[in-house]
């Protein structure tokens, strides 16, 4: 065993390698941002489907969540990149195939699908957590049903849902690294690229790792602060999140 590695930080400073890293950071943010937004939209749709009184909306949504929750994100990425255009009509598929940014789009959509199932679960639990007692209390104060939602129930649900959503967002940010398998030039891809061109990937990977950690910690602490501010009226979100039906493996 011998630690012979001599760090050579000039590798990262060389402009072509530095550009890989900078573009990588940009792509990582783009993927994380858009897939988070899209996944929240997907989550809202699925959650309202599962909560809707119409039976024909409930079971497809529940079944979808039951299945999709068990399918790896990296599978979705490869599926959307290689297979999805194939099952479309030929003309549309070939447009997607030949579109230069399709890898990026496929990555974003795949991550949104993956994250969306989790988000829908979180939202659904948030709404369910508003006990019927609170609804009745809101009703008994004479609020209209719109007022009930806007003034009482939605803020309450937000407070319950926010910590779990923040957690998922960090997770999604980290998952953006999976897009490297289809050649999206994000940060993890950049570290591998530098490794393969210069044989000095350790420095680049170290920088990338620190970047991921710092961003996650910053986001974590921001969401924590926000949570504390919202929790001036304390509601036990923990009880809700420990519900067995929720599949968020976080604290």
């Amino acid at each position, binding site marked *: 065993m011998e630690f012979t590695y001599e760090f050579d930080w000039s590798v990262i400073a060389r402009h072509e390698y530095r550009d890989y890293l900078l573009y990588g950071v940009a792509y990582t943010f783009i993927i994380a941002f858009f897939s988070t937004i899209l996944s929240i939209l997907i989550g809202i749709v699925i959650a309202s489907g599962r909560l809707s009184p119409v039976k024909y909306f409930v079971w497809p949504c529940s079944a979808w969540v039951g299945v999709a929750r068990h399918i790896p994100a990296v*599978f979705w990425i490869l599926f959307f990149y290689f297979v999805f255009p194939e099952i479309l009509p030929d003309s549309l598929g070939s447009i997607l195939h030949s579109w230069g940014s399709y890898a990026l789009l496929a990555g974003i959509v795949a991550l949104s699908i993956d994250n969306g199932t989790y988000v829908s679960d979180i939202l659904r639990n948030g709404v369910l957590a508003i006990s019927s007692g609170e609804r009745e209390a809101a009703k008994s104060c004479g609020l209209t049903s719109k007022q009930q939602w806007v003034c009482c129930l939605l803020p309450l649900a937000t407070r319950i849902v926010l910590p779990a959503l923040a957690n998922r967002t960090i997770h999604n940010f980290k998952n953006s690294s999976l897009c490297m398998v289809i050649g999206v030039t994000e940060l993890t891809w950049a570290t591998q690229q530098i490794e393969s061109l210069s044989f000095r*990937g*350790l420095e680049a*990977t170290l920088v990338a*790792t620190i970047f991921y950690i710092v961003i996650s910690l910053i986001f974590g602490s921001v969401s924590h602060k926000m949570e504390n501010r919202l929790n001036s009226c304390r509601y036990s979100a923990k009880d809700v999140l420990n519900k067995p039906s929720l599949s968020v493996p976080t604290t």
Partner: protein
Amino acid sequence: MSLDWLSFMMIGGWPDGPPGGLLINIGLAVSCFLMGFIFAVPLALLRMAGGRISGFCATAFIEVLRSTPLILLLFWCHFLLPIIIGINIPPLWSAFIALTLYSSAYQAEIVRAGFSSVPSGEVEAAQATGLSKSQVFINIVIPQGLRRMTPASASFAVSLFKDTAVIYVVGVIDLMQSGLIAAERNPNKMLISYLVMAAGFAVVGMVISLIGYKLENRLNFTRKVVSE
């Protein structure tokens, strides 16, 4: 009904195509879950009750691992750890190390949450009857904490199993990799290969979910026991 049309899925990969690859996924998920748990308990305890330095180290370890993407962790263990320690690590082992580290950090947080969700009143009551600190821990905190963390642990087990799909990037021929090989060899049956892969993950994932659910119900302490 003949399954000949699926036979192309039975070739390529360890030892006999995707079904064999799935075994690698399951084996890795199970072993890394257990190994991770073994590391997680002391980590959680250090973070909760360790001294200043050891507590900080545990916290740093957990937070660093939790904020590093799994695929990057995998590259660390596969490409970079060998450079640092100078020992050659086969892909399967580096996947094992990465997943164990990953699951130990996540499970440490689950364990911590489980332990701290034990009602403080019960801990006090135990102390008040004269149980020593370690006795309180063994008799009250551990049994209750373990039960309280089962839902989170179960869903983490599912997500860990899912995450084993990533290991194909370092060349382990698991379900994902062997499915991809099958798809590459038969491009016209690509959709079927992908569906088989998805089904493999979904079915096993559901079984794990089910086991977790059963375990949760069994450990539920509101159950009534008929006296002998």
